[in-house]
């Protein structure tokens, strides 16, 4: 993950994070992706324990606490390396964020995926928005208020089930992706499979986020 030339002694850096000649810490390169940064394979199913262990180990390597007695240049590197490491861990720790990040890496698209409702839920969600609005303006203590609330609660449960379904579909796609990576084939069916996975993953992630936002909104309104 280090640059090829040591910023300090200009010799070639062969060590992972430190120059082997002058033992100075090296900045994590801007091109380093989070998987490389944390020293884990570019997979979507990661063992959280291993990820955490790696994060702790690298924190011990880069944290500014351990550079207090070093030069200003080394302190600056430690600070920015630690910041990158923290972002990397935060992103990869969460399976959804991890998948969104991988998608961005693989398809080179912008980092945030636009959220959109699943086509089959379009009508239902429009109706739901109306009910929500009605509930917000209704007298919550009244019979009508109670009815609306019950309806919204049922909706919430339904959407949460739907979200769980999507998440299990996503987990399947994650497994598919990892399997494809493990075989390491570059054949044309493999490429087609890769594109299928990425496309489906993108749609699912976008729909899931959309539903997630609605569920949160619902929960906050009827809480």
């Amino acid at each position, binding site marked *: 993950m280090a640059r090829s030339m040591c910023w300090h002694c200009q010799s070639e850096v062969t060590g992972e994070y430190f120059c082997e000649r002058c033992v100075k810490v090296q900045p994590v390169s801007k091109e380093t992706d989070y998987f490389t940064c944390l020293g884990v394979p570019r997979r979507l199913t990661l063992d959280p324990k291993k990820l955490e262990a790696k994060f702790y180990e690298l924190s011990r390597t880069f944290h500014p606490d351990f550079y207090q007695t070093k030069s200003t240049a080394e302190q600056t590197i430690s600070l*920015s390396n630690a910041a990158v490491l923290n*972002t990397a861990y935060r992103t990869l720790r969460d399976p959804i964020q991890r998948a969104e990040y991988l998608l961005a890496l693989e398809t080179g698209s912008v980092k945030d995926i636009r959220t959109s409702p699943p086509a089959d839920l379009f009508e239902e969600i429009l109706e739901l928005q109306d009910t929500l609005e009605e509930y917000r303006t209704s007298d919550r203590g009244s019979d009508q208020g109670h009815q609306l609330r019950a309806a919204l609660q049922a909706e919430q449960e339904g959407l949460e089930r739907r979200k769980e379904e999507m998440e299990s579909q996503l987990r399947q796609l994650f497994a598919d992706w990892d399997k494809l990576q493990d075989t390491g084939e570059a054949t044309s069916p493999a490429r087609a499979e890769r594109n299928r996975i990425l496309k489906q993953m993108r749609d699912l992630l976008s729909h899931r986020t959309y539903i997630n936002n609605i569920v949160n909104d619902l929960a906050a309104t009827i809480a």
Partner: protein
Amino acid sequence: MARIVGIDLGTTNSLVAYMKDGQPRIVPDRNGRTMVPSVVALADNGLIVGNSAKEHLTRNPERTVYSVKRFMGKGLADIQNELTYFPYHLTETGGVIRIRLGQKNYSPPQISAMILKELKLRAETYLGESITKAVITVPAYFNDSQRQATKDAGLIAGLEVLRIINEPTAAALAYGLQKNTQGTIAVYDFGGGTFDISILKLKDGIFEVLATNGDTHLGGDDVDRMLVDLFVSEIQEREAVDISDYPDHLQAVRLEVERAKIRLSDELKTEIAIELPEGRGRFTRALTRDQLESLVMSVIERTLVPCRMALKDAGLNPKDIDEVVLVGGSTRMPLVRQLVEALFGKPPHCHLNPDEVVALGAAVQADILSGGTTDMLLLDVTPLSLGIETMGGVMSSLIRRNTTIPASAKEMFTTYVDGQTGVDIHILQGERELVKDNRSLARFRLKVPPLPAGVPRIEVTFLIDANGILNVTATDMRTSQSQSIEVKPSYGLSDTEVERMIEDSFKFAAEDVGARKLIEARLDAESLIKTIDKSLAEAGHLVAREEADTIRIASSQLSTVKDGTDFRAIRARMAELEQAAKHLNAVMLDDSLKRGLQGKKVSDVS
């Protein structure tokens, strides 16, 4: 590396600690006391700090500053509804509160610096070396301005602040070191002015903060206030006196109810007596623990809201917490313990001294920084989301709350008008949607080369360092040139102002040293005069009359200069008196030896 001390700069009490043989220890004063009351008073002979200043709370209320921590990083508008509680005069200049003491106005960092200096001196005296580096603790929920103000206080006190560390996490360090705990702990820190809750995961020497929350305006002070209000209105009713018209009596009431509150942590009932103004006798009243608890229940319950939020942010349920650690004086209230136990479903841990554990943890962190402790590492988080103002007065979040620090975010800026040469950026902290509901941290203007609209690309990096303090840098992506940014804090001292205060503080330090020497010389002179008087009374008959007269004259000369302001003159006269009395002392010693020998056997002597 020079020694780094750990300092708990509290609202009510402050402490300084150091590391010895792998264990943190508190630096005591000559009398063995560990806490320095965070009180600064302007007395006749200058500014005084700590225990002696505390005595001025009732004698000199308008010249005695307490709870200054509540004002750190704040403007006057922030404390509008509690202004009446403070007997001293507060104003505002440049977004910073100023406190009037005599003829001068002081910013909260300057007052805090006086407390820090007292701690510095205490450590220097005790350890016999000069102290210039420190780790200082702040409430976890302190925002950027409050942290910066604390750092400024350190600078003004002549301390290099190597790290600002959160109080609950400091406590966790001390606790973890002692208990070698693994698992998930919640630190509930309820002191005089602030409340914090932090949830940490302890594993193999790593202290990873999962979430933190709090209220920087909630503490024992608020409990005291409810009691003060109760007593003021009861005295009004029963005695037809409005105590709030008498600042000294109001302070006396505050101190009296606080003592009663503390007694009620051990007793079920207590008597409170309050001296009324203008010799109108005393007001007495019994207060039971039940009465206290029902009065302040709402204050204590307010601490539970941040607890639930922190749990939610950490993605945990109360039952996932393995241990609950209590920190801060107010956790001695039985009601607090009850509510905490009810929330987490397990009795809290209170074997550690809740007054000292934060300072001890700061010393552990200091030891980590100096390379002494290498197996422990604290990974803390930023308590509040950081963002910038965007169109329509909306805050766009860049770094979410509870993100592990150091944390950074990059944002690209461009122009909307041809030839535009600057972009104004407004930095905010908080969890709300709209700019006006969040805390303004600072503003700055990004310099842009005059180009057609949309062409410039300036990347701004917002970096929250390990102190939880924001640093901003910018790079022109077209030229790869970085530009320095001068941030104007919304509620903080400017760099030049801090520099001036540092200079002032050194100037005063010289004056202070002079004042201290004078006081010491006076005290020494007084005790010398007393000793000599006693010697003359006991043994004056053993020397010639002329000699006794010479001694008397020297003594009266010392008496005269003693009340002057020249400590050198006092020391000179003292030397003369000692010289004059030398023979007398020798004669006395001889005499007492002789008399001591009488009636004793030779074998007892050798």
